[in-house]
Protein backbone atom coordinates (compact mmCIF):
# COMPACT_ATOMS: atom_id res chain seq x y z
CA UNK A 1 0.00 0.00 0.00
CA UNK A 2 1.27 3.42 -0.89
CA UNK A 3 2.15 5.89 1.84
CA UNK A 4 -0.30 8.76 2.02
CA UNK A 5 0.75 12.09 0.67
CA UNK A 6 1.41 14.99 3.02
CA UNK A 7 -1.91 16.56 1.98
CA UNK A 8 -3.80 13.38 2.77
CA UNK A 9 -2.14 13.13 6.14
CA UNK A 10 -3.18 16.67 6.92
CA UNK A 11 -6.80 15.96 6.00
CA UNK A 12 -7.23 12.72 7.90
CA UNK A 13 -6.75 12.04 11.56
CA UNK A 14 -5.60 8.96 13.37
CA UNK A 15 -8.44 7.12 15.08
CA UNK A 16 -6.56 7.74 18.30
CA UNK A 17 -6.87 11.51 17.79
CA UNK A 18 -10.57 11.10 17.20
CA UNK A 19 -10.80 9.08 20.40
CA UNK A 20 -9.19 11.85 22.41
CA UNK A 21 -11.33 14.59 20.85
CA UNK A 22 -14.53 12.61 21.32
CA UNK A 23 -13.71 11.97 24.97
CA UNK A 24 -13.21 15.68 25.54
CA UNK A 25 -16.53 16.36 23.94
CA UNK A 26 -18.25 13.78 26.13
CA UNK A 27 -16.54 15.00 29.30
CA UNK A 28 -17.73 18.55 28.66
CA UNK A 29 -21.25 17.53 29.58
CA UNK A 30 -20.72 14.34 31.59
CA UNK A 31 -18.76 14.49 34.81
CA UNK A 32 -18.94 10.73 35.24
CA UNK A 33 -16.50 10.24 32.33
CA UNK A 34 -13.19 9.20 33.85
CA UNK A 35 -9.97 8.36 32.01
CA UNK A 36 -7.49 6.06 33.68
CA UNK A 37 -4.02 5.69 32.21
CA UNK A 38 -0.79 3.79 32.84
CA UNK A 39 1.73 6.51 32.02
CA UNK A 40 0.04 6.51 28.61
CA UNK A 41 -1.32 10.05 28.61
CA UNK A 42 1.06 11.12 25.86
CA UNK A 43 0.81 8.02 23.70
CA UNK A 44 -2.95 8.06 24.14
CA UNK A 45 -3.10 11.69 22.91
CA UNK A 46 -4.73 12.54 26.21
CA UNK A 47 -2.61 15.51 27.26
CA UNK A 48 -5.25 18.05 26.12
CA UNK A 49 -7.94 16.03 27.90
CA UNK A 50 -5.91 16.08 31.11
CA UNK A 51 -5.35 19.83 30.83
CA UNK A 52 -9.01 20.53 30.26
CA UNK A 53 -10.48 18.02 32.70
CA UNK A 54 -7.82 17.37 35.36
CA UNK A 55 -10.43 16.02 37.78
CA UNK A 56 -11.49 13.40 35.24
CA UNK A 57 -8.18 11.69 34.62
CA UNK A 58 -6.40 9.31 36.97
CA UNK A 59 -2.81 8.25 36.55
CA UNK A 60 -1.97 4.73 37.72
CA UNK A 61 1.69 4.51 36.69
CA UNK A 62 3.17 1.68 34.69
CA UNK A 63 1.17 -1.13 36.28
CA UNK A 64 -1.37 -2.51 33.84
CA UNK A 65 -2.82 -5.14 36.17
CA UNK A 66 -3.52 -2.42 38.69
CA UNK A 67 -4.85 -0.16 35.92
CA UNK A 68 -7.57 -2.65 35.05
CA UNK A 69 -8.36 -3.67 38.63
CA UNK A 70 -8.61 -0.05 39.77
CA UNK A 71 -10.68 0.81 36.69
CA UNK A 72 -13.08 -2.01 37.60
CA UNK A 73 -13.40 -0.68 41.14
CA UNK A 74 -14.06 2.83 39.84
CA UNK A 75 -16.60 1.57 37.30
CA UNK A 76 -18.44 -0.36 40.03
CA UNK A 77 -19.43 2.98 41.53
CA UNK A 78 -21.19 4.16 38.37
CA UNK A 79 -18.40 6.06 36.67
CA UNK A 80 -17.89 5.73 32.91
CA UNK A 81 -14.32 4.56 33.03
CA UNK A 82 -12.03 4.49 29.99
CA UNK A 83 -8.90 2.50 30.85
CA UNK A 84 -6.29 3.51 28.30
CA UNK A 85 -3.04 1.64 27.74
CA UNK A 86 -1.06 0.23 24.81
CA UNK A 87 -3.06 -2.71 23.44
CA UNK A 88 -0.07 -5.03 23.70
CA UNK A 89 0.25 -4.62 27.48
CA UNK A 90 -3.40 -4.00 28.30
CA UNK A 91 -4.56 -7.29 26.83
CA UNK A 92 -1.63 -9.48 27.89
CA UNK A 93 -0.23 -8.18 31.19
CA UNK A 94 -3.68 -7.59 32.61
CA UNK A 95 -5.55 -10.35 30.82
CA UNK A 96 -6.74 -11.90 34.05
CA UNK A 97 -7.98 -8.58 35.39
CA UNK A 98 -9.94 -8.16 32.14
CA UNK A 99 -11.34 -11.67 32.47
CA UNK A 100 -12.16 -11.51 36.19
CA UNK A 101 -12.47 -7.91 37.37
CA UNK A 102 -14.08 -6.48 34.24
CA UNK A 103 -15.93 -9.22 32.35
CA UNK A 104 -16.77 -11.77 35.07
CA UNK A 105 -17.61 -9.13 37.67
CA UNK A 106 -19.52 -7.23 34.96
CA UNK A 107 -17.89 -3.89 35.72
CA UNK A 108 -18.56 -1.85 32.57
CA UNK A 109 -15.01 -0.64 31.97
CA UNK A 110 -14.21 0.65 28.50
CA UNK A 111 -10.81 -0.88 27.76
CA UNK A 112 -8.99 1.18 25.16
CA UNK A 113 -6.04 -0.54 23.52
CA UNK A 114 -3.94 2.14 21.86
CA UNK A 115 -1.27 1.69 19.18
CA UNK A 116 -2.74 -1.71 18.40
CA UNK A 117 -1.58 -4.36 15.97
CA UNK A 118 1.87 -3.49 14.63
CA UNK A 119 1.44 0.28 15.11
CA UNK A 120 4.68 0.39 17.07
CA UNK A 121 6.51 -0.99 14.02
CA UNK A 122 10.20 -1.45 14.61
CA UNK A 123 9.83 -1.45 18.39
CA UNK A 124 9.22 -5.15 17.94
CA UNK A 125 7.13 -8.01 19.20
CA UNK A 126 6.89 -6.87 22.84
CA UNK A 127 4.94 -3.88 21.54
CA UNK A 128 2.76 -5.63 18.99
CA UNK A 129 -0.73 -6.81 19.87
CA UNK A 130 -1.43 -9.65 17.48
CA UNK A 131 -3.10 -11.78 20.13
CA UNK A 132 -5.79 -9.50 21.50
CA UNK A 133 -8.74 -10.59 19.35
CA UNK A 134 -7.93 -14.25 19.97
CA UNK A 135 -7.52 -13.85 23.71
CA UNK A 136 -10.49 -11.57 24.28
CA UNK A 137 -12.88 -13.45 21.98
CA UNK A 138 -12.64 -16.31 24.44
CA UNK A 139 -13.66 -14.12 27.37
CA UNK A 140 -17.38 -14.16 28.01
CA UNK A 141 -19.22 -10.86 28.50
CA UNK A 142 -16.90 -8.62 26.51
CA UNK A 143 -17.55 -6.69 23.31
CA UNK A 144 -14.47 -6.52 21.06
CA UNK A 145 -14.21 -3.67 18.56
CA UNK A 146 -11.68 -2.36 16.03
CA UNK A 147 -12.94 0.82 14.29
CA UNK A 148 -11.76 1.30 10.71
CA UNK A 149 -11.94 5.04 10.24
CA UNK A 150 -12.63 8.29 12.06
CA UNK A 151 -16.39 7.86 11.75
CA UNK A 152 -16.35 4.42 13.33
CA UNK A 153 -13.84 5.53 15.96
CA UNK A 154 -15.99 8.43 17.09
CA UNK A 155 -19.19 6.41 17.15
CA UNK A 156 -17.55 3.50 18.93
CA UNK A 157 -16.45 5.81 21.73
CA UNK A 158 -19.82 7.53 21.99
CA UNK A 159 -21.62 4.18 22.08
CA UNK A 160 -19.12 2.77 24.58
CA UNK A 161 -19.82 5.70 26.89
CA UNK A 162 -23.53 4.92 26.71
CA UNK A 163 -23.30 1.18 27.10
CA UNK A 164 -23.35 -0.40 30.52
CA UNK A 165 -21.30 -3.33 29.35
CA UNK A 166 -17.61 -4.29 29.39
CA UNK A 167 -15.96 -3.45 26.07
CA UNK A 168 -12.55 -3.49 24.42
CA UNK A 169 -11.77 -1.06 21.60
CA UNK A 170 -8.42 -0.98 19.82
CA UNK A 171 -6.95 1.89 17.85
CA UNK A 172 -3.96 2.36 15.60
CA UNK A 173 -1.79 5.42 15.29
CA UNK A 174 -1.84 6.24 11.63
CA UNK A 175 -4.17 8.67 9.89
CA UNK A 176 -7.22 6.91 8.47
CA UNK A 177 -9.27 8.25 5.58
CA UNK A 178 -13.07 8.12 5.72
CA UNK A 179 -14.23 4.90 4.06
CA UNK A 180 -17.32 6.57 2.66
CA UNK A 181 -19.00 9.96 2.67
CA UNK A 182 -22.43 8.31 2.73
CA UNK A 183 -24.55 10.51 5.01
CA UNK A 184 -26.88 7.62 5.87
CA UNK A 185 -24.02 5.70 7.43
CA UNK A 186 -24.77 4.10 10.81
CA UNK A 187 -22.67 2.46 13.48
CA UNK A 188 -23.86 -0.22 15.82
CA UNK A 189 -21.86 -2.79 17.79
CA UNK A 190 -22.26 -6.23 16.28
CA UNK A 191 -23.41 -4.94 12.89
CA UNK A 192 -20.76 -4.98 10.17
CA UNK A 193 -20.72 -2.09 7.77
CA UNK A 194 -20.81 -2.69 3.99
CA UNK A 195 -18.64 0.05 2.53
CA UNK A 196 -18.62 -1.16 -1.07
CA UNK A 197 -20.68 -3.71 -2.97
CA UNK A 198 -19.86 -6.21 -5.72
CA UNK A 199 -20.84 -9.79 -6.47
CA UNK A 200 -17.56 -11.45 -7.43
CA UNK A 201 -15.72 -11.39 -4.14
CA UNK A 202 -16.17 -10.34 -0.51
CA UNK A 203 -13.35 -8.80 1.48
CA UNK A 204 -13.99 -8.54 5.22
CA UNK A 205 -11.58 -6.29 7.02
CA UNK A 206 -11.42 -4.91 10.52
CA UNK A 207 -9.73 -1.84 11.95
CA UNK A 208 -6.99 -0.43 9.79
CA UNK A 209 -7.08 -3.19 7.18
CA UNK A 210 -10.43 -2.01 5.82
CA UNK A 211 -8.94 0.95 3.99
CA UNK A 212 -6.40 -1.12 1.98
CA UNK A 213 -9.23 -3.58 1.34
CA UNK A 214 -11.21 -0.77 -0.30
CA UNK A 215 -8.18 0.23 -2.38
CA UNK A 216 -7.70 -3.41 -3.37
CA UNK A 217 -11.34 -3.69 -4.42
CA UNK A 218 -11.02 -0.55 -6.53
CA UNK A 219 -7.90 -1.96 -8.19
CA UNK A 220 -9.57 -5.31 -8.88
CA UNK A 221 -12.46 -3.57 -10.56
CA UNK A 222 -10.36 -1.10 -12.53
CA UNK A 223 -7.73 -3.57 -13.73
CA UNK A 224 -9.57 -6.90 -13.90
CA UNK A 225 -13.25 -6.02 -13.87
CA UNK A 226 -13.71 -7.99 -10.64
CA UNK A 227 -16.34 -6.43 -8.45
CA UNK A 228 -15.86 -6.89 -4.73
CA UNK A 229 -17.89 -6.18 -1.65
CA UNK A 230 -15.90 -4.71 1.21
CA UNK A 231 -17.09 -4.97 4.79
CA UNK A 232 -15.80 -3.24 7.86
CA UNK A 233 -16.35 -5.92 10.49
CA UNK A 234 -15.57 -3.48 13.26
CA UNK A 235 -17.07 -5.73 15.93
CA UNK A 236 -15.14 -8.95 16.28
CA UNK A 237 -17.45 -10.08 19.07
CA UNK A 238 -20.38 -10.38 18.83
CA UNK A 239 -19.76 -11.16 15.18
CA UNK A 240 -22.37 -10.17 12.61
CA UNK A 241 -23.48 -13.66 11.56
CA UNK A 242 -26.39 -12.33 9.58
CA UNK A 243 -24.15 -10.30 7.32
CA UNK A 244 -21.67 -13.17 7.02
CA UNK A 245 -24.42 -15.50 5.88
CA UNK A 246 -25.61 -12.95 3.37
CA UNK A 247 -22.12 -12.62 1.92
CA UNK A 248 -21.61 -16.38 1.82
CA UNK A 249 -24.95 -17.12 0.18
CA UNK A 250 -23.72 -15.53 -3.05
CA UNK A 251 -21.11 -18.29 -3.32
CA UNK A 252 -18.41 -15.71 -3.99
CA UNK A 253 -14.95 -16.19 -2.51
CA UNK A 254 -14.35 -14.54 0.87
CA UNK A 255 -11.16 -12.97 2.17
CA UNK A 256 -10.67 -11.76 5.71
CA UNK A 257 -7.94 -9.23 6.47
CA UNK A 258 -6.78 -8.26 9.95
CA UNK A 259 -3.79 -6.69 11.68
CA UNK A 260 -3.61 -9.68 13.97
CA UNK A 261 -2.28 -13.21 14.06
CA UNK A 262 -3.94 -15.50 11.55
CA UNK A 263 -4.81 -17.58 14.59
CA UNK A 264 -7.91 -16.88 16.62
CA UNK A 265 -8.96 -13.53 15.19
CA UNK A 266 -11.53 -12.27 12.71
CA UNK A 267 -10.62 -14.85 10.07
CA UNK A 268 -11.02 -17.90 12.25
CA UNK A 269 -14.19 -16.46 13.78
CA UNK A 270 -15.67 -16.13 10.27
CA UNK A 271 -14.38 -19.56 9.20
CA UNK A 272 -15.94 -21.19 12.22
CA UNK A 273 -19.32 -19.71 11.45
CA UNK A 274 -19.16 -20.51 7.74
CA UNK A 275 -18.02 -24.10 8.17
CA UNK A 276 -20.57 -24.87 10.85
CA UNK A 277 -23.35 -23.45 8.75
CA UNK A 278 -22.65 -25.38 5.59
CA UNK A 279 -20.96 -22.64 3.56
CA UNK A 280 -18.07 -23.81 1.42
CA UNK A 281 -17.01 -20.59 -0.29
CA UNK A 282 -13.37 -20.31 -1.32
CA UNK A 283 -11.89 -18.69 1.76
CA UNK A 284 -8.62 -17.07 2.76
CA UNK A 285 -7.48 -15.60 6.06
CA UNK A 286 -5.02 -12.73 5.65
CA UNK A 287 -3.13 -11.58 8.72
CA UNK A 288 0.23 -11.88 10.39
CA UNK A 289 1.61 -15.41 10.15
CA UNK A 290 2.79 -17.34 13.19
CA UNK A 291 6.26 -15.82 13.42
CA UNK A 292 8.05 -12.86 14.99
CA UNK A 293 7.32 -10.05 12.62
CA UNK A 294 9.84 -8.65 10.19
CA UNK A 295 11.46 -5.41 11.34
CA UNK A 296 9.99 -2.27 9.83
CA UNK A 297 7.46 0.51 10.15
CA UNK A 298 3.81 -0.42 10.49
CA UNK A 299 3.27 0.08 6.75
CA UNK A 300 6.39 -1.92 5.89
CA UNK A 301 5.27 -4.78 8.12
CA UNK A 302 1.74 -4.76 6.69
CA UNK A 303 3.13 -4.66 3.14
CA UNK A 304 5.54 -7.50 3.92
CA UNK A 305 2.65 -9.76 4.90
CA UNK A 306 0.39 -8.69 2.07
CA UNK A 307 -2.00 -6.62 4.18
CA UNK A 308 -1.86 -3.93 1.51
CA UNK A 309 -3.75 -2.79 -1.55
CA UNK A 310 -1.48 -4.93 -3.74
CA UNK A 311 -1.44 -7.95 -1.45
CA UNK A 312 -5.18 -8.10 -0.90
CA UNK A 313 -5.88 -7.52 -4.61
CA UNK A 314 -3.50 -10.33 -5.56
CA UNK A 315 -5.12 -12.74 -3.12
CA UNK A 316 -8.56 -11.74 -4.35
CA UNK A 317 -7.57 -12.24 -7.98
CA UNK A 318 -6.21 -15.72 -7.28
CA UNK A 319 -9.34 -16.79 -5.42
CA UNK A 320 -11.65 -15.52 -8.16
CA UNK A 321 -9.56 -17.09 -10.93
CA UNK A 322 -9.39 -20.40 -9.08
CA UNK A 323 -13.14 -20.46 -8.62
CA UNK A 324 -13.69 -19.73 -12.32
Amino acid sequence: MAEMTQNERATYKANLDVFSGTLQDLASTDRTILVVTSDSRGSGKLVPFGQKYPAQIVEIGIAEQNLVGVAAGLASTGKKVFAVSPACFLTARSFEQIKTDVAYSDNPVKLIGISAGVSYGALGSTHHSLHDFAALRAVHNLIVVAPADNFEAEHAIRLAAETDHPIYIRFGKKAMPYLTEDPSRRFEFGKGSVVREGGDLAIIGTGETVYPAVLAANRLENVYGIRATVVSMHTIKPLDYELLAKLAETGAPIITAEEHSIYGGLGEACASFLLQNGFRNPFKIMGIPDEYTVTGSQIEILNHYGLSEEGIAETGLKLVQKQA
Partner: protein
Amino acid sequence: MTDKELALKSVEYRRKILKYIVEAKAGHTGGSLSCVDILNVLYNHVMNVSPENFRSPVRDRYIQSKGHTVEALYVVLADQGFFPESDLLTLCKYGSHYIGHPTKKVNGIEQNTGSLGHGMSLSVGTALAAKLDGLAYRVFTLLGDGELPEGSNWEGALLASHYQLDNLCAIVDKNGLQISGPTTDVCNTDPLDRKFEAFGWEVRHVDGHDFGALKEAFAALPFAPGKPSLIIAHTVKGRGISYMENQLKWHHGVPNAEQYAQALEELEEATAVLR
Protein backbone atom coordinates in the same frame (compact mmCIF):
# COMPACT_ATOMS: atom_id res chain seq x y z
CA MET B 1 -22.71 -5.45 70.02
CA THR B 2 -20.79 -6.62 73.12
CA ASP B 3 -17.76 -8.83 72.89
CA LYS B 4 -19.78 -11.66 74.40
CA GLU B 5 -22.58 -11.26 71.87
CA LEU B 6 -20.03 -11.26 69.08
CA ALA B 7 -18.36 -14.34 70.51
CA LEU B 8 -21.67 -16.19 70.66
CA LYS B 9 -22.40 -15.18 67.09
CA SER B 10 -19.04 -16.51 65.96
CA VAL B 11 -19.74 -19.90 67.52
CA GLU B 12 -23.00 -19.95 65.62
CA TYR B 13 -21.23 -18.90 62.41
CA ARG B 14 -18.70 -21.71 62.88
CA ARG B 15 -21.52 -24.20 63.34
CA LYS B 16 -23.13 -23.03 60.10
CA ILE B 17 -19.87 -22.96 58.15
CA LEU B 18 -19.32 -26.61 59.02
CA LYS B 19 -22.94 -27.52 58.40
CA TYR B 20 -22.94 -26.18 54.85
CA ILE B 21 -19.46 -27.49 54.04
CA VAL B 22 -20.53 -30.96 55.21
CA GLU B 23 -23.72 -30.63 53.20
CA ALA B 24 -21.79 -29.54 50.07
CA LYS B 25 -18.97 -32.02 50.70
CA ALA B 26 -16.65 -29.18 49.73
CA GLY B 27 -15.31 -25.91 51.05
CA HIS B 28 -12.33 -24.07 52.46
CA THR B 29 -12.81 -25.01 56.06
CA GLY B 30 -9.63 -23.91 57.80
CA GLY B 31 -9.51 -20.42 56.26
CA SER B 32 -13.22 -19.81 56.79
CA LEU B 33 -12.74 -20.57 60.48
CA SER B 34 -9.71 -18.27 60.70
CA CYS B 35 -11.40 -15.24 59.13
CA VAL B 36 -14.95 -15.52 60.44
CA ASP B 37 -14.36 -13.48 63.60
CA ILE B 38 -13.07 -10.61 61.47
CA LEU B 39 -16.16 -10.78 59.24
CA ASN B 40 -18.35 -10.98 62.31
CA VAL B 41 -16.93 -7.72 63.71
CA LEU B 42 -17.01 -5.99 60.31
CA TYR B 43 -20.64 -6.79 59.54
CA ASN B 44 -22.06 -6.60 63.04
CA HIS B 45 -20.08 -3.74 64.47
CA VAL B 46 -18.15 -1.71 61.90
CA MET B 47 -19.56 -1.39 58.42
CA ASN B 48 -22.50 0.65 57.27
CA VAL B 49 -23.96 -1.95 54.95
CA SER B 50 -27.18 -3.90 55.07
CA PRO B 51 -29.70 -5.45 52.68
CA GLU B 52 -31.63 -2.17 52.90
CA ASN B 53 -28.80 0.11 51.82
CA PHE B 54 -26.89 -2.29 49.56
CA ARG B 55 -27.64 -0.23 46.42
CA SER B 56 -26.84 3.06 48.14
CA PRO B 57 -23.77 4.84 46.74
CA VAL B 58 -22.64 5.72 50.26
CA ARG B 59 -22.66 2.21 51.76
CA ASP B 60 -19.40 0.81 53.06
CA ARG B 61 -17.89 -1.82 50.78
CA TYR B 62 -16.38 -5.19 51.61
CA ILE B 63 -14.34 -7.00 48.97
CA GLN B 64 -13.01 -10.43 49.83
CA SER B 65 -9.72 -10.93 48.06
CA LYS B 66 -9.23 -14.40 49.57
CA GLY B 67 -12.37 -15.52 47.81
CA HIS B 68 -11.96 -19.20 48.60
CA THR B 69 -13.13 -18.75 52.20
CA VAL B 70 -16.51 -17.69 50.88
CA GLU B 71 -18.34 -20.04 53.27
CA ALA B 72 -17.58 -17.64 56.13
CA LEU B 73 -18.93 -14.74 54.06
CA TYR B 74 -22.06 -16.66 53.06
CA VAL B 75 -23.08 -17.44 56.64
CA VAL B 76 -22.45 -13.86 57.77
CA LEU B 77 -24.42 -12.41 54.83
CA ALA B 78 -27.29 -14.83 55.48
CA ASP B 79 -27.31 -13.75 59.11
CA GLN B 80 -27.48 -10.12 57.99
CA GLY B 81 -30.56 -10.97 55.93
CA PHE B 82 -29.08 -10.63 52.46
CA PHE B 83 -30.64 -13.97 51.49
CA PRO B 84 -32.42 -16.86 53.21
CA GLU B 85 -29.96 -19.10 54.99
CA SER B 86 -31.68 -22.14 53.47
CA ASP B 87 -30.17 -21.06 50.10
CA LEU B 88 -26.87 -22.36 51.44
CA LEU B 89 -28.17 -25.91 51.23
CA THR B 90 -27.46 -25.54 47.50
CA LEU B 91 -23.81 -24.61 48.11
CA CYS B 92 -21.65 -25.93 45.24
CA LYS B 93 -24.56 -27.98 43.92
CA TYR B 94 -25.56 -28.18 40.27
CA GLY B 95 -27.04 -24.90 39.05
CA SER B 96 -26.58 -23.04 42.35
CA HIS B 97 -25.53 -19.38 42.55
CA TYR B 98 -23.68 -20.27 45.72
CA ILE B 99 -20.39 -21.41 44.25
CA GLY B 100 -17.04 -21.89 45.95
CA HIS B 101 -16.02 -18.26 45.49
CA PRO B 102 -17.85 -14.94 45.83
CA THR B 103 -19.98 -13.79 42.91
CA LYS B 104 -22.30 -10.85 42.49
CA LYS B 105 -25.14 -13.23 41.71
CA VAL B 106 -25.38 -13.56 45.47
CA ASN B 107 -27.00 -10.57 47.13
CA GLY B 108 -24.56 -8.68 49.33
CA ILE B 109 -21.42 -9.53 47.38
CA GLU B 110 -19.63 -6.57 45.76
CA GLN B 111 -17.19 -8.23 43.38
CA ASN B 112 -16.45 -11.63 41.90
CA THR B 113 -13.20 -12.94 43.28
CA GLY B 114 -11.44 -16.26 43.46
CA SER B 115 -8.22 -15.70 41.57
CA LEU B 116 -5.91 -14.35 44.25
CA GLY B 117 -4.39 -10.88 44.28
CA HIS B 118 -7.41 -9.07 42.85
CA GLY B 119 -9.09 -7.56 45.90
CA MET B 120 -6.53 -4.86 46.52
CA SER B 121 -6.80 -3.10 43.14
CA LEU B 122 -10.59 -3.40 43.10
CA SER B 123 -10.67 -1.87 46.57
CA VAL B 124 -8.25 0.90 45.62
CA GLY B 125 -10.47 1.84 42.66
CA THR B 126 -13.59 1.81 44.83
CA ALA B 127 -11.93 3.89 47.56
CA LEU B 128 -10.53 6.29 44.98
CA ALA B 129 -14.04 6.82 43.60
CA ALA B 130 -15.19 7.90 47.08
CA LYS B 131 -12.38 10.46 47.23
CA LEU B 132 -13.14 11.76 43.73
CA ASP B 133 -16.83 12.12 44.57
CA GLY B 134 -16.32 13.49 48.08
CA LEU B 135 -18.27 10.60 49.60
CA ALA B 136 -17.58 9.30 53.10
CA TYR B 137 -17.91 5.57 52.58
CA ARG B 138 -15.07 3.21 53.46
CA VAL B 139 -13.71 0.17 51.71
CA PHE B 140 -12.58 -2.98 53.52
CA THR B 141 -10.74 -5.83 51.87
CA LEU B 142 -9.69 -9.13 53.37
CA LEU B 143 -6.43 -10.59 52.10
CA GLY B 144 -4.94 -13.97 52.84
CA ASP B 145 -1.32 -14.13 53.92
CA GLY B 146 -0.78 -16.83 51.28
CA GLU B 147 -1.86 -14.55 48.43
CA LEU B 148 0.54 -11.74 49.24
CA PRO B 149 3.27 -12.88 46.82
CA GLU B 150 0.87 -11.91 44.00
CA GLY B 151 2.48 -8.76 42.61
CA SER B 152 -0.84 -7.06 41.93
CA ASN B 153 -1.29 -6.62 45.70
CA TRP B 154 1.78 -4.45 45.79
CA GLU B 155 0.82 -2.46 42.70
CA GLY B 156 -2.43 -1.63 44.45
CA ALA B 157 -0.78 -0.93 47.79
CA LEU B 158 1.58 1.53 46.15
CA LEU B 159 -1.23 3.44 44.47
CA ALA B 160 -3.36 3.49 47.64
CA SER B 161 -0.73 5.51 49.46
CA HIS B 162 -0.01 7.64 46.36
CA TYR B 163 -3.63 8.77 46.40
CA GLN B 164 -3.72 8.97 50.22
CA LEU B 165 -6.66 6.59 50.48
CA ASP B 166 -7.30 6.75 54.20
CA ASN B 167 -10.81 5.43 53.52
CA LEU B 168 -9.26 2.07 52.64
CA CYS B 169 -8.59 -0.63 55.20
CA ALA B 170 -6.99 -3.93 54.25
CA ILE B 171 -7.02 -6.79 56.73
CA VAL B 172 -4.60 -9.67 56.39
CA ASP B 173 -5.95 -12.94 57.76
CA LYS B 174 -2.52 -14.10 58.87
CA ASN B 175 -3.17 -17.73 59.74
CA GLY B 176 0.32 -18.73 58.63
CA LEU B 177 -0.67 -21.72 56.52
CA GLN B 178 -1.35 -22.17 52.84
CA ILE B 179 -2.06 -25.23 50.74
CA SER B 180 1.60 -26.30 50.44
CA GLY B 181 2.69 -25.58 53.99
CA PRO B 182 3.65 -22.76 56.34
CA THR B 183 3.52 -19.41 54.54
CA THR B 184 7.00 -18.62 55.85
CA ASP B 185 8.30 -21.74 54.02
CA VAL B 186 6.40 -21.23 50.75
CA CYS B 187 7.35 -17.60 50.18
CA ASN B 188 8.07 -15.63 53.29
CA THR B 189 6.43 -12.20 53.26
CA ASP B 190 7.62 -11.20 56.73
CA PRO B 191 8.16 -8.64 58.06
CA LEU B 192 4.81 -7.69 56.62
CA ASP B 193 4.37 -4.58 58.71
CA ARG B 194 7.63 -3.05 57.55
CA LYS B 195 6.89 -3.87 53.93
CA PHE B 196 3.50 -2.14 54.03
CA GLU B 197 4.93 0.75 56.03
CA ALA B 198 7.55 1.17 53.32
CA PHE B 199 4.66 1.33 50.83
CA GLY B 200 3.16 4.22 52.77
CA TRP B 201 0.59 2.38 54.89
CA GLU B 202 -0.08 2.68 58.61
CA VAL B 203 -0.07 -0.77 60.15
CA ARG B 204 -1.45 -2.35 63.32
CA HIS B 205 -1.24 -5.90 64.62
CA VAL B 206 -4.23 -7.46 66.27
CA ASP B 207 -5.32 -10.84 67.57
CA GLY B 208 -7.84 -11.77 64.87
CA HIS B 209 -9.96 -13.74 67.34
CA ASP B 210 -10.08 -11.07 70.06
CA PHE B 211 -13.33 -9.18 69.54
CA GLY B 212 -12.35 -6.32 71.81
CA ALA B 213 -9.05 -5.86 70.02
CA LEU B 214 -10.67 -6.05 66.59
CA LYS B 215 -13.30 -3.48 67.59
CA GLU B 216 -10.64 -1.20 68.98
CA ALA B 217 -8.54 -1.43 65.82
CA PHE B 218 -11.49 -0.70 63.53
CA ALA B 219 -12.58 2.17 65.77
CA ALA B 220 -9.16 3.76 65.31
CA LEU B 221 -9.48 3.98 61.50
CA PRO B 222 -7.86 5.64 59.74
CA PHE B 223 -4.71 4.88 61.71
CA ALA B 224 -3.14 8.00 60.22
CA PRO B 225 -4.83 10.76 58.22
CA GLY B 226 -3.96 10.56 54.54
CA LYS B 227 -2.70 6.99 54.75
CA PRO B 228 -4.34 3.64 53.97
CA SER B 229 -4.62 1.33 56.98
CA LEU B 230 -3.49 -2.26 57.27
CA ILE B 231 -4.62 -4.59 60.03
CA ILE B 232 -2.46 -7.66 60.37
CA ALA B 233 -4.87 -10.05 62.07
CA HIS B 234 -3.03 -12.93 63.66
CA THR B 235 -5.35 -15.89 63.36
CA VAL B 236 -5.43 -19.64 63.69
CA LYS B 237 -6.38 -21.73 60.70
CA GLY B 238 -9.24 -24.01 61.71
CA ARG B 239 -9.91 -21.91 64.82
CA GLY B 240 -12.51 -23.26 67.19
CA ILE B 241 -12.30 -26.95 66.32
CA SER B 242 -9.49 -28.60 68.26
CA TYR B 243 -8.41 -31.14 65.67
CA MET B 244 -8.47 -28.60 62.84
CA GLU B 245 -6.43 -25.85 64.44
CA ASN B 246 -3.13 -25.24 62.66
CA GLN B 247 -3.54 -28.45 60.67
CA LEU B 248 -2.76 -28.05 57.01
CA LYS B 249 -5.07 -30.83 55.87
CA TRP B 250 -8.06 -28.75 56.92
CA HIS B 251 -7.27 -26.11 54.29
CA HIS B 252 -10.10 -27.64 52.32
CA GLY B 253 -10.82 -30.71 54.35
CA VAL B 254 -14.43 -31.82 54.86
CA PRO B 255 -15.25 -33.49 58.19
CA ASN B 256 -16.66 -37.02 58.13
CA ALA B 257 -19.71 -37.84 60.28
CA GLU B 258 -17.68 -38.60 63.36
CA GLN B 259 -15.49 -35.53 63.01
CA TYR B 260 -18.52 -33.37 62.38
CA ALA B 261 -20.22 -34.68 65.52
CA GLN B 262 -17.12 -33.91 67.56
CA ALA B 263 -16.94 -30.41 66.08
CA LEU B 264 -20.57 -29.76 67.01
CA GLU B 265 -19.88 -30.97 70.55
CA GLU B 266 -16.94 -28.62 70.87
CA LEU B 267 -19.05 -25.74 69.63
CA GLU B 268 -21.79 -26.65 72.14
CA GLU B 269 -19.20 -26.50 74.89
CA ALA B 270 -17.94 -23.16 73.61
CA THR B 271 -21.47 -21.77 73.75
CA ALA B 272 -21.97 -23.13 77.28
CA VAL B 273 -18.74 -21.55 78.47
CA LEU B 274 -19.72 -18.17 76.98
CA ARG B 275 -23.16 -18.26 78.58
